[in-house]
Every structure is written in structure tokens, then in C-alpha cells.
């Protein structure tokens, strides 16, 4: 059963790689950040699955930190992008 | 379900060699890239490579050496602190430069 989880982890890595293709192609900044976000979700999934495969609950703490900080890069990215003069 | 791939390297060596490759990649980028923000990324990649070498070589068959782990944790935190300092310096330098030649660069087509 643990092997199945490892296999799922490998597939998840491949979906992350696919998402990164969109990050590379763009075209806009929104796409790039979106793809980085999806890669982050994939990595969280891998952490959960690896934790199950190895029977180590501490891996879940890594996943939890990942989800807590998942939105931080997006938040930083969107902030500097309002139209000129659109302050409040 | 075992060994769809032959095991060429131990886990520790695999990550350590990846680390060595990262160090080389980062060094090459540091030499050839022109923009300081990009060079900052390169320095971070070199650092990550060194951390991986330390961690990989501490990966025994049944346990991972706690000493390199402790070193790497402090290293990661120091690296982010110095990255913050580097980024602040780069921004400050750009500000100084922008202030030195006012108005000329503000427009797409410089005024005569």
C-alpha cells in the first residue's frame, strides 16, 4: 500500500511539472503566479502522500505550513498592481 | 512493486550530487548574469546546493545526521536574512540612481 502512495507522489510531481510549463510560457504575470500557486498545492499534496507512505505524521506539519503560507506570495504579487491613482 | 529503475546511487549520494550540480549552476549564473537581483537568486541557489550536499552526506541507511540538519536550519535562516539585506541594497541603489538623473527616465521618450 505504501508503494501506491509513493506512486501517487510521483504522479503529483508530474502534474507540478505540467503546471510549471504554463509558468514558463506565461504570457502574463497572472499566469505565472497562478502556475506557481498550483505547483505549491501539488507540493502540499506530495507532502501529505509521502507522510502516508512513510507513516510519519510530522510530514503533515510540513503540509500545514505549506497551506498556511500558500497565499502569501500571491498576496505580495497582487498588491503592487493597482491602477495609478486608484488609492482607496 | 519494486525497482522499475535500477538503484544507481544511494539516496544520500543522489541528493548530494544534485547539490553539487546546483552549486555549479549557481556559480555559472552568478558569473554570467548582469542584474544584481538575478545574481542574488544565483547566490541563493549556490547556498541551497551546499545545504543539499551537507544533508545528503548525512543521510545514513537508517537515520539522518542531526548535526548537518541543525547547520542547515541555521544556514537557511541566515541566507534569508542576507537575501533581505541584498534586496534592500539593490532597491536602495536603484533609488539613488533614479534620483541622480531626474525626469530623464520618467518618460518613455526623454524630453529634449
Amino acid at each position, binding site marked *: 500500500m505504501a508503494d501506491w502512495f509513493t506512486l501517487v507522489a510521483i504522479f503529483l510531481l508530474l502534474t507540478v511539472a505540467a503546471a510549471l510549463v504554463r509558468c514558463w510560457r506565461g504570457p502574463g504575470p497572472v499566469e505565472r503566479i497562478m502556475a506557481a500557486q498550483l505547483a505549491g*498545492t501539488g507540493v502540499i499534496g506530495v507532502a501529505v502522500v509521502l507522510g502516508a507512505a512513510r507513516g510519519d*505524521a510530522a510530514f*503533515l506539519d510540513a503540509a*500545514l505550513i505549506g497551506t498556511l503560507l*500558500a497565499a502569501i506570495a500571491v498576496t505580495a504579487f*497582487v498588491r503592487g*498592481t493597482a491602477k495609478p491613482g486608484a488609492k482607496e | 512493486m519494486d525497482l522499475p529503475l535500477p538503484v544507481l546511487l544511494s539516496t544520500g549520494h543522489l541528493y548530494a550530487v544534485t547539490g553539487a550540480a546546483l552549486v555549479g549552476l549557481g556559480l555559472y549564473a552568478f558569473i554570467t548574469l548582469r542584474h544584481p537581483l538575478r545574481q542574488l537568486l544565483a547566490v541563493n541557489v549556490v547556498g541551497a546546493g551546499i545545504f543539499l550536499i551537507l544533508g545528503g552526506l548525512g543521510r545514513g541507511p537508517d537515520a539522518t545526521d542531526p548535526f548537518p540538519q541543525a547547520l542547515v536550519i541555521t544556514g537557511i535562516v541566515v541566507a534569508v536574512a542576507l537575501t533581505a539585506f541584498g534586496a534592500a541594497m539593490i532597491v536602495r541603489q536603484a533609488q539613488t540612481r533614479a534620483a541622480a538623473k531626474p525626469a530623464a527616465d520618467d518618460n518613455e521618450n526623454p524630453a529634449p
Partner: protein
Amino acid sequence: MSWIDLAVLALLGAGLAFYAAGSLGLLRFPDTASRLHALTKADNLGLGLVALAAAIYGGSLAVAAKIALVWLFAVIAAGTTSQLLARRARLDEARLDDADSAPDGGLR
């Protein structure tokens, strides 16, 4: 292989399908809004199903609770980020329509 194992495998497969759909949608959909739509599937359902499989397999209540927390925060973060990104995409479009603003103007 017990029924529980089968259920875990089924959940893993479904979760993977949603992850794959998310990546595929991000790659193949034509515009920003529909790509964003694809993204949230992976964020919410893909991770949710995979996490549920891990929780069942883990077999302890503490592990299951922690996995539930992971998923809960992933959903909250996904909701926040998709709103922010959608807003950003709309502002970018509006800026492209504005003839008088500089290509990358207005960025602080």
C-alpha cells in the same frame, strides 16, 4: 486487499484526476479567467480527495484531524488567492484598455 484499501485507492485515483485536470486546464484553457477556474479544482478537490485517502489510510483520529486542517486552510487560501488573482487580471485588462497609461505604469 480489503475494502478499505480499495476505497483509499479509488480516492487517490479521483484526487489525481482532479490534479491532472487542474494542470491540464491551466495548460490548455485559452484565457486567464478559465485558467483560474481550472486552478481551483486542483486546489480544492484534488488535494481534498488525496488528503481523505491519506486520512483513511493513516487510521488515527489525530492524523485525520491534522489532514482536515491542511485541507481547510488550503481551501481558504485558494478562495483568497483566486479572488485576488481575478481582481488583478481585471485591473490588468483595464490598464491595457487605457491608452494613456504606461505599459507597466502604476506599479509601486
